[in-house]
């Protein structure tokens, strides 16, 4: 365990050193602040608290932004060390290969945690202190922060898989962008396209739920938009998650699988890799 922290702290220090963490905090904080200011504008008609509105808009944007941040953190972390030659030296030290991967993972998730906690958390504190907004529905907001970290962890793990598979950093960068497009844009487009073309109704509700569920980004959306009553009322999709039999545990479970599977594959490939 001590080894893991030594390796993780190195990544965190790198993140602080190259202003990565600072940039992410500012980006996420500014976004959350802007959206919660916008969220204060609509009133009355749907009887949503300001925070619920913020959760809707912020999670809709996070689903694009968090994967991007996570991939940027991780795509380089293995192939970069292979290329520079630092990995070779590291592996002659008394660390196991799984410790190298898990140490990096711990470090990168911590960076994301710091960025999200400070960015999103800071924004909401600023809002309540300075504009006197209510904290009703804070549970949904905290749940959004937590699930954002989980979503980020998914893409950190996917980034490692890319990083261990490719031979050059440039390829890793390209592949990471492709991965982001697929998970965040293309998959949903294909799904809705198929639904539109599906005149014979081959895709029933159950199949559709499954198709939604297997995508980590869609799981994240459903988790944030439909699990809390206030939010789902405001989003106009009240109750669809429970109707489709999706519980918070199931949704988080799916996302966890998306963390574990790429990490395991990365470990297996890395374990066999010759330097």
């Amino acid at each position: 365990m001590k080894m893991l922290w030594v390796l993780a702290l190195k990544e965190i220090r790198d993140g602080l050193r190259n202003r990565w963490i600072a940039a992410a905090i500012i980006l996420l904080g500014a976004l959350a602040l802007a959206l919660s200011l916008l969220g204060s504008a609509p009133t009355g008609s749907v009887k949503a608290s300001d925070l619920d509105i913020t959760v809707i808009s912020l999670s809709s944007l996070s689903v694009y932004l968090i994967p991007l941040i996570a991939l940027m953190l991780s795509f380089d972390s293995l192939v970069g060390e292979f290329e520079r030659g630092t990995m070779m030296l590291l592996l002659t030290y008394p660390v196991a290969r799984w410790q190298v991967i898990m140490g990096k993972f711990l470090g990168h998730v911590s960076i994301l945690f710091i960025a999200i906690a400070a960015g999103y958390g800071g924004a909401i504190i600023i809002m309540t202190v300075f504009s006197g907004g209510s904290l009703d529905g804070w549970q949904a907001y905290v749940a959004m922060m937590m699930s954002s970290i989980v979503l980020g962890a998914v893409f950190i793990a996917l980034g490692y898989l890319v990083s261990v598979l490719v031979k050059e950093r440039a390829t890793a960068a390209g592949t990471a962008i492709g991965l982001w497009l697929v998970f965040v844009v293309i998959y949903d487009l294909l799904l809705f396209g198929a639904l539109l073309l599906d005149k014979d109704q081959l895709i029933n509700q159950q199949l559709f739920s499954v198709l939604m569920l297997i995508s980590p980004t869609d799981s994240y959306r459903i988790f944030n938009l439909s699990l809390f009553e206030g939010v789902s009322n405001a989003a106009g999709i009240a109750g669809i998650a429970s109707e489709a039999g999706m519980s918070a545990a199931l949704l988080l479970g799916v996302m966890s699988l998306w963390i574990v599977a790429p990490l395991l594959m990365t470990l297996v490939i890395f374990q066999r890799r010759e330097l």
Partner: protein
Amino acid sequence: MVNLKSASEVISLQSVHKAYANETVLHDINLSIQSGECIVLVGHNGAGKTSLIKMMLGLTRPTSGSIEVLGRAPAFSAIVAQRLALGYLPESVAFYEAMTGHEVLSFYAQLKGSSKAECKKLLDLVGLGDAAKRRVGTYSKGMRQRLGLAQAMLGNPQLLFLDEPTTGLDPVLRQHFYELIDDLQKEGATSIISSHALHEVESRASRFVILKKGIVVACGTLDELYQQAVLPVRVKVSVTPGEASRVVERMGSAASITDVNNQSFHLSCLMDEKMSLIRHISSLGDVVQDMQIMPPRLDELYSHFMNGDGPS
């Protein structure tokens, strides 16, 4: 050189073969290294020196054959603690550029369980005490190499692998560098050094391993190699001016004679003919004014093995 009391085998390779997709980089390597030895790997670029070192470090595994380091197969992460006893300085060492020298060294020290005090001591030892707070990105080649040596020395390793350790160092630094290695050696460390600069390591090496295209063409102490190579000894004989050709005639066909001029000529003969030849020359009397014996040099030995006329 080898301390007999504690001499034991620390590395053993048996018919080790290493091939990548389309080329063989190491071919049938058999090698046994005893503790306390200083092995120097010699060979052209691409002869397999680095491949051999990486395999001993467990970064790669042999395609066939067996390898044992400190009694265990080193490949991959099988026994992590075994690597506590290893120190490695890679060829053109790379570090995390954004960290300071001190941070880099203490990162590695933590992984090896070494103390902060040891870090500081090593930084001072390699002369980086003043630059410790600077980012490694700003270091010169020589400073990186010294930082590389410092990290290799963490935790007093039993086995020290140095891949081309002195490339890019100026002569003064080289000297200092080898003094540091000598100190470790005195404490009983075994070192495996790959090098082009033969004259630097000549006096340190307990044995040379000469590699050529992945094959060990020669292995042994310097004396053994000279014996194997059967290189000629050259003798320069100076005689009274004008007498050279007459003396050459009197030499007969005992040795091959070259470079005859007015007052000197060169002779070359095999090592075991040397003494009789010298006796013969001294029997010639006063005409012989001086005699210089030139034993074969290290680079002649090297090119002998590298040019393919050695046993393979």
